[in-house]
């Protein structure tokens, strides 16, 4: 059974990664998870300077999901390199550094620092960050800015460059096309969906920032539809993220066309979810006569006469 998958020159031992912001820096849970069994670990978003993040409350549970407004709290790229990377050396898995920034220049600087590190195998770019220059509007909702970021970063690294897209746009495939055109190796989607919850006793928002990012099983159907839209628009690999808690969920993403998947919120419930998903996917492929998990990708049987554009909801 072939489980591995290559993006650029980097071979991941399987197609299951843990998602940014849901697994710390990779060194938090050594006694609960054998990290070496994961295809890779995507780090918490790293910025140039350490960030304190937003005030409490930052999280609240909602129907089959949760809202968060962590505010990209992180230790900063320098501390990551000096304190975290050395510890990760002992694990046999791939490290994908996720980068967040408030200017194009900051994205470039953080990437350059990390590109020099042998232990960083690739990059995932979180474009769902406020662009300080444009009054805090998210980079990820402006296709020109996503193009520009991809172009600038592509010039600065030969390692796999993955752009992580936000679902909070009308046509996510437009953004994926822009990334492909500027040389991205892959796109990953979806980041969290903007959401809100209200405490009716106090008549206040349940999280300090009023709105936040929805994740977990509640967003899986949204994520599947966005992956479906994107795989029909680009040739580069699409990494599916959103609401995966079981191997069955992951298989859905592969069938729809994701080449890899990431596990997010499920890590909070079972930190070893990634491993059980990898084992389950492998078994499913064996039972269904696939000798490579890749053969499962994009095997969706659809009614060809109704296309996504023509169908009325």
């Amino acid at each position, binding site marked *: 059974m072939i489980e591995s998958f290559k993006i650029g020159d980097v071979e991941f031992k399987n197609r299951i990664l843990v998602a940014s912001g849901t697994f710390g820096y990779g060194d938090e*849970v050594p006694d609960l998870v054998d990290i070496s069994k994961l295809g890779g670990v995507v780090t918490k978003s790293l910025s140039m300077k350490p960030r304190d993040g937003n005030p409490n409350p930052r999280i609240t549970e909602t129907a089959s999901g949760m809202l*968060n407004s*962590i505010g990209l*709290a992180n230790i900063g790229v320098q501390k990551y390199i000096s304190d975290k990377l050395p510890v990760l050396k002992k694990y046999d898995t791939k490290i994908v550094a996720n980068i967040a920034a408030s200017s194009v220049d900051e994205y470039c600087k953080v990437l350059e620092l990390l590109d020099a590190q042998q232990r960083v195998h690739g990059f995932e770019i979180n474009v769902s960050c406020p662009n300080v220059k444009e009054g805090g509007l998210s980079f990820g909702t402006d296709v020109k800015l996503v193009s520009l970021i991809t172009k600038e970063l592509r010039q600065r690294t030969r390692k796999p460059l993955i752009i992580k897209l936000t679902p909070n746009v009308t046509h996510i495939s437009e953004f994926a096309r822009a990334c492909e055109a500027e040389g991205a190796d892959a796109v990953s989607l979806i980041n969290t969906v903007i959401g809100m919850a209200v405490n009716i006793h106090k008549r206040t928002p349940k999280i300090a920032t009023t709105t936040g990012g929805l994740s977990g*099983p509640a967003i899986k159907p949204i994520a599947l539809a966005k992956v479906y839209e994107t795989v029909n628009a680009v040739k580069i690999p699409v990494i599916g993220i959103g609401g995966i808690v079981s191997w069955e969920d992951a298989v859905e993403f592969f069938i729809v066309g994701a080449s890899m998947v990431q596990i997010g919120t499920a890590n909070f*419930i*079972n930190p070893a979810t990634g491993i059980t998903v990898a084992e389950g996917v492998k078994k499913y492929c064996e039972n269904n006569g696939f000798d490579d998990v890749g053969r499962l990708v994009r095997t969706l049987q659809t009614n060809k006469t109704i296309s996504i554009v023509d169908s009325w909801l």
Partner: protein
Amino acid sequence: MKQEIVPIHSLEFLSKEILELTFISEYLASTAKPGQFINIRVGDNFPLLRRPFSIFNVDENRVSIVFNVIGTGTKVLARKQKGETIDVLGPCGNDFLSFVDDSFDTAVFVAGGIGVAPFRFLTKKLYNNKQIVTFLGGRHKEQIIASGLQNIKIATDDGSQGFKGTVLDLIKDDFSKNMYKRPRFFLCGPTRMMKAVSEFATGIGADCCASMECDMACGIGLCQGCNIEMNGGDKKYRLVCKEGTIFETKNLKF
């Protein structure tokens, strides 16, 4: 720290409102310390996130928690039966024993409502070494769980048991009448109560530590969801689940 599926040993009412759930875990029974918590997967899919509970008691290979039925998670827990299993992850967080040293002689425990949870286990570990006085506060008598505690003083809002008034009023009254040798405060309960009591403790020059509560997604340092604001120092926030739950109150910005 481990994730285990453990058998339920019993589920009993300790008062009309508070339940004790006991399960069997050699691992937790031998590793858990007073003040630590476990994170329970209450149902298979609902609610989604685990719920944190303080360790109430450890007896041979049995470990228990106490809870009020207040919402989705505790409603599901209250329907569990002997022989069923639950998924527990722990022990999590720091513990009260790491705040115990030679700098004090009297351990003053102050609990609000279900915040009494860690003190029975702490009493077991401390009663040979320290003088203990325990102040319990609750809305009414069904919220008072006094078993396994020492030198107990009770306050209820409605006066249905003990002193009528807040636990802080009771402490003030008591401290005006009694002399405690070199006290140190240990708090667990609603944040407002803990803030008020910590101000009192500071006022009399006593050290004070508190187990802080906070909504948690993971309980193990992965999500950064459980931040608490610090009063100066190198970091603006710390994580309640990992760097706490117990903090010196002088370091907190309440």
